[in-house]
């Protein structure tokens, strides 16, 4: 019959491509991170530096500040998306005319390129051409300027992310809500449970796995946001929206300090893995004993 050799031949292109463009870059960045290397310096060669780069990171104020705003951004954006997404999913649960049509429209932002999302919101919020600052100015006299106000820029990036990704949360939660069995709800209604009680004691525990999966996917994506923010604010004003990906793009590349840049990449990768692992075990594991 058929031999396994043919199977390996079929798998070979995938393994080769992913090795050269996925694994090797990773190993290379780890290797470079232990060196001092600036190709445009007086000494353009790699100099072994031990853990020096990593020691530098711990005291790097710009990097730590970037880490801080990233965590704040991810927290507020994902929290808003899950709450709004749940409410919208719940609003889709009853029948009304044009349901499929509205659902399609609501899904639209998902497929738009992140960089285009950034440019759309730039056009919406830039003073003098944007409609949002104009409306705020003429209606309540509030002067919105994302080029000057750090808080405004931070909030607009969150609104942009919510606009872009809430549909994903909505659709995944619709899928979860549709698959729920009707019996517990009918039983609870017969027993005279209130809406809030039903939500808290029946709906939430039953859709918890789906919510967790969605939160997980959103967290991973929100942690690595770059394109939109790069386009909208460029990380500014100051460093108010300099999220970690933007920081690497803006700070590490132009400086051509490859050793230090690699070290930052390694640290960010490590932190992402740890964060995901902690979330995974912290949120999913405690639920298991209760389920059995």
């Amino acid at each position, binding site marked *: 019959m058929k031999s396994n050799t043919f*199977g390996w031949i079929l798998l070979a292109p995938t393994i080769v491509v992913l090795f050269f463009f996925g694994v090797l870059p990773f190993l*290379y960045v780890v290797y470079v991170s232990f060196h001092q290397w600036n190709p445009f310096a007086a000494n353009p060669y790699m100099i072994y530096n031990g853990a020096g780069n990593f020691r530098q990171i711990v005291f790097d104020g710009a990097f730590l500040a970037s880490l801080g705003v990233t965590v704040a951004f991810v927290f507020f954006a994902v929290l808003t998306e899950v709450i709004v997404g749940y409410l919208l999913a719940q*609003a889709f649960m009853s029948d009304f005319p044009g349901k499929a049509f*509205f659902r*399609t*429209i609501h*899904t639209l932002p998902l497929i738009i*390129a992140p960089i285009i999302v950034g440019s759309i919101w730039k056009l919406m919020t830039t003073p003098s051409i944007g409609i949002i600052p104009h409306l705020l100015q003429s209606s309540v006299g509030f002067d919105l300027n994302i080029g000057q106000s750090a808080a405004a820029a931070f909030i607009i990036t969150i609104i942009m992310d919510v606009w872009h990704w809430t549909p994903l949360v909505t659709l*995944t939660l619709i899928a979860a809500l549709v698959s729920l069995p009707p019996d517990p709800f009918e039983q609870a209604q017969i027993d005279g449970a209130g809406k809030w009680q039903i939500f808290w004691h029946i709906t939430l525990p039953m859709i918890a796995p789906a919510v967790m999966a969605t939160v997980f996917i959103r967290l991973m994506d929100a942690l690595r946001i770059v394109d939109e923010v790069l*386009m909208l604010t460029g990380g500014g004003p100051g460093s108010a929206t300099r999220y970690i990906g933007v920081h690497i793009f803006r700070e590490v590349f132009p400086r051509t300090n490859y050793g230090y840049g690699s070290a930052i990449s390694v640290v960010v990768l490590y932190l992402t893995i740890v964060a995901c692992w902690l979330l995974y075990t912290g949120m999913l594991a405690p639920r298991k004993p209760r389920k059995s």
Partner: protein
Amino acid sequence: MKKKTPWPYVFFWVLISFLTLFPIYWLFVISVTPSFELFSTPSVILQHVDWQNYTEVIGNPTLRGYMMNSLLISSGNAILTTTFGFFACYALSRFNLSGKESIFFWTITNRMAPPAVFLLPLFLLLTKVYRIEGFTLLDTRIGMILVYCTFNLPFAIWTLRPTVDGIPKELDEAAFVDGASPWKVITEVVFPLCRPGLAVTLILTWVFAWNEYLLAATLTNFNARTLTTGLSEYVTTTGTAWGIMAAISIFTLIPALIVFSVVQRHIVAGLTFGAVKG
């Protein structure tokens, strides 16, 4: 449950749809507003439509080149990843390879890492290591096609696996008994049956490659620059060509919207790696 009147819901969703669509509409408004009118009072209603920005984008040879690059890179990448992904899925599904489930999981780890982390190593590898006598992969279309495989190939494998697994093994075996070569079984028995799944994978990988910005911005200078990177070139410190920027955005948006209407149902399943069926 008691029957409610549906009209409040309709009203609610009209409102939500308005919020969803308005930013896209505003992009269109800016793109058709003549530049001298741009800085007068912003108005929601279009006064007159001026297609000048669009003719300027189409008439610009540099931007036409970028558009061509985008088209070639995303098409090349979609075909490459779907083909490789299909082969890999067939191997994972039909052969008893040692550690194949580990390989399957390993592929997706390539997609989990933040792309910003891989900018520097990929840049260094493309310029310093992957070179044959002065020829480097930096700023070449083929280089970008290969680089995009890091996020599209795992996606293709993960979305195609259920499709290939779903084709009954008996069909292959019957063909083998009839004396067909393994290659012939793949191309003439399995491939035609997988066509719908392959089409969805092809389209979604195409969109991801088309939408990509960060890697293209760092790994290309001019020759292989894509439309998304061309967009950021119109945002400079001395001023932004708002109308042109909006017109390029519209050009980048249109293919994605066409694709969206085709594979709408599969998008959520795709974006969540099949964790949720849309």
